[in-house]
Structure formats: structure tokens, C-alpha cells
């Protein structure tokens, strides 16, 4: 009852500040500005995210999400704002995943990484700058996410994900996105996601190439490509051919698209298939995986 009153109250404030926006297709839309959202959030002492959700529920679009509407709609944006996504690793893949999820408007990000930025990260890790070398990746990533989207909340864990702490680190997440750089950790995350009954968006890179797969708890997952034995490689050819700047951006962008599809229900995630991206030849292949 009380929350309904608060909702109505906020709805009234939003309605008073609503603006009309002429979309490129000639359609008139009701929108609300960043400034209005922030001011209602401050005066009513409620999270900006809640103000945005209340607006969207009335068909009023926060201006910042206008260009998201055509793909995921009002309902999709509400689902994203209400969701929690964990990003394990805030380096090459993870940095770009965090950047894009914040822009997309995922309401709560959990960022896990125990590393600091070093000079060799500068070529590809989008969060790293000459200025922030030596700083913890999670600290930089949380700051950046907040600068991009002040309505979202960010939880950081400056530790390495292990079998022992997965529940604490990943609990509450609806999807986990992979920003790791070795296979043993990925197997730990996959196992944890199965236990938590949540999907895991696997992504890897090496040179001009990358791989992607969305693994739901009931899917065959990583054993279907690496085999079930313990004789798995820790690292791949990236140790020899390196990771140029564009490759993590390509794979991370596809991973973010998977997260968006999973949460909004729009489109079809890449399940029980491995997507192989070769940007040198501009080729994308899918292999159907079987048990």
C-alpha cells in the first residue's frame, strides 16, 4: 500500500516534468530528461533507477534510453533496469562488457577482479589509461560505470573467484558474463552458474579470433569442446599471438548482446553452439555441439 502511494507520487512528479520528443520517424514520444530523473531521485530520496522504471511503466522514456527502444522496447528496458549481471574479470573482455552494460542500462552490475592495470593492458583494456596504471581494475570500472550511468548500482569484489566464494560473489546475479583469461577459472564459473541455475556467457579471444557460447544450466557447455577429462589446457594460442585491441571489443560486444537477449527475451542466444569469429578473414562460423 505504502509503496503504491510512493509510486503514484513519483509518477505524478514524472508526469509534471514530461517532455515531448519528435523521433526521427516522425512519431511523438513522451520522454523524461536525465536532470529530471536525478532531481526526483534526490528530492524523493529514491534510487534514480526506480524513477526510470516508474517512468517506463507509464510509457515515458528516459531520454538516455531512446535509442534502445526500437530493439528491446519499454518492457525490455524495465527488465534490464531490474536485473543484476555479474562480470567476472574487468580486463579486455570485461572492461568493454561493463562499459556497454552500463550504457544499456543494466540496473545492477557485480564486478569481480583482483588485478591492477599494467602497461601491457593499455593496448586493449578499454578502462585502462596511462593515468590509472597501478589502480585496481574494479575501482576504475565502478567509477567509469557510474560516470556513464548514475542510475545503476555497482557492487565490486576485489578478489579472485574460487570454488569457495562463488556463492558470495555471484549470488543474486541473473546472468554471468565472462571476462576471464584462463580456462580453469572459466570451469569454476561454469560450475557455479550451474549450481546457481543461471546462464553463463562464455567468451574468449586470441589474435584476430574469438569464441562465444551462452551456457544455460542444462546445456552441455565447456566439456563439449574441451572434453570431460582433467587434461585441459590452461591457456591457448593467445599466449603466442597476443590480443590486439579490436578482438576483445568484438567478442565483448557479442557477449553483451547475449546478456541483453537473455534478460529481455528478445532474439535467440547462442546455445549448444560455439560461435567462432575470425576477424582476419571476416568469417563467423557456428558449430552445433553435441554430448
Amino acid at each position: 500500500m505504502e509503496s503504491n502511494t510512493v509510486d503514484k507520487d513519483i509518477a505524478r512528479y514524472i508526469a509534471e516534468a514530461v517532455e515531448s520528443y519528435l523521433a526521427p520517424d516522425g512519431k511523438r514520444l513522451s520522454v523524461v530528461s536525465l536532470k529530471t530523473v536525478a532531481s526526483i531521485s534526490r528530492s524523493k530520496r529514491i534510487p534514480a533507477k526506480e524513477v526510470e522504471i516508474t517512468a517506463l511503466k507509464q510509457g515515458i522514456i528516459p531520454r538516455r534510453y531512446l535509442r534502445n527502444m526500437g530493439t528491446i522496447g519499454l518492457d525490455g528496458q524495465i527488465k534490464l533496469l531490474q536485473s543484476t549481471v555479474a562480470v567476472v574479470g574487468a580486463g579486455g573482455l570485461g572492461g568493454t562488457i561493463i562499459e556497454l552494460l552500463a550504457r544499456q542500462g543494466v540496473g545492477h552490475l557485480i564486478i569481480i577482479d583482483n588485478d591492477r592495470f599494467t602497461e601491457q593492458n593499455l593496448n586493449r583494456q578499454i578502462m585502462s589509461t596511462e593515468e590509472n596504471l597501478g589502480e585496481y581494475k574494479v575501482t576504475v570500472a565502478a567509477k567509469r560505470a557510474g560516470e556513464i550511468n548514475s542510475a545503476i548500482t555497482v557492487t565490486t569484489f576485489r578478489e579472485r573467484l574460487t570454488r569457495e566464494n562463488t556463492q558470495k560473489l555471484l549470488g543474486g546475479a541473473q546472468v554471468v558474463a565472462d571476462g576471464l583469461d584462463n580456462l580453469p577459472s572459466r570451469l569454476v564459473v561454469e560450475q557455479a552458474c550451474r549450481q546457481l541455475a543461471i546462464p553463463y556467457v562464455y567468451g574468449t579471444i586470441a589474435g584476430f579470433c574469438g569464441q562465444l557460447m551462452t551456457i544455460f544450466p542444462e546445456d552441455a557447455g565447456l566439456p563439449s569442446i574441451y572434453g570431460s577429462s582433467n587434461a585441459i589446457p590452461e591457456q591457448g594460442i593467445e599466449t603466442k599471438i597476443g590480443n590486439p585491441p579490436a578482438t576483445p571489443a568484438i567478442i565483448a560486444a557479442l557477449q553483451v548482446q547475449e546478456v541483453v537477449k537473455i534478460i529481455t527475451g528478445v532474439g535467440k542466444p547462442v546455445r549448444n553452439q560455439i560461435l567462432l569469429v575470425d576477424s582476419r578473414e571476416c568469417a563467423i562460423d557456428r558449430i552445433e555441439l553435441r554430448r
Partner: protein
Amino acid sequence: MALITVRFYSLWRSYLGTDSTTLQADHIDDALTQLEEKFGYQLRKKLETAGIHLDGKIQDYSLILLNGIALRNLRSTALKEGDVLHIFPPAIGG
């Protein structure tokens, strides 16, 4: 003898200059031996040119699936007409 198709992906396709080949073989081991004879030297030479030295046979540094099943998970190593081997390098970075 079964006629099988071998498909190369990502870097292997670039380095071998082809996306597939066919082989006549009855068992997976036989197919891998032929693959090594046909492409092993060429692949390692291309990798060497790019400054990458890899020891062993193609199968030692590749991920290989037979009809979408990892070789380590195969219940039978016998091949049948129309089988497809998928081969690509492990990419594990992030």
C-alpha cells in the same frame, strides 16, 4: 573406408588457405594421421613465419570435434560416411 570432411576454422583456416578437405578413413586415429601428413608441416611452417613455435602434431594444439562432439568425449572412434571433423585452435584469452 568412410569419406569424411574436415573443416578448419579461425586461424587454422587462414594459415592453411582452405576451409575444408576430405579424407578416406575408418578410424579417428587414421584420420588424424592423414591430417598430420597432409597439413602438419604446412601449418607449423606458417605459424613459425608468424613467430609461433608449436611442438607436436596438429591434434596436440587444436580443439577437435567429431560431428560436434569433443574427441575426448567420443564413445566410438569408428568413422562413418559423411562424418565431419571440426578443427580450430584454442583461444582462451580475455
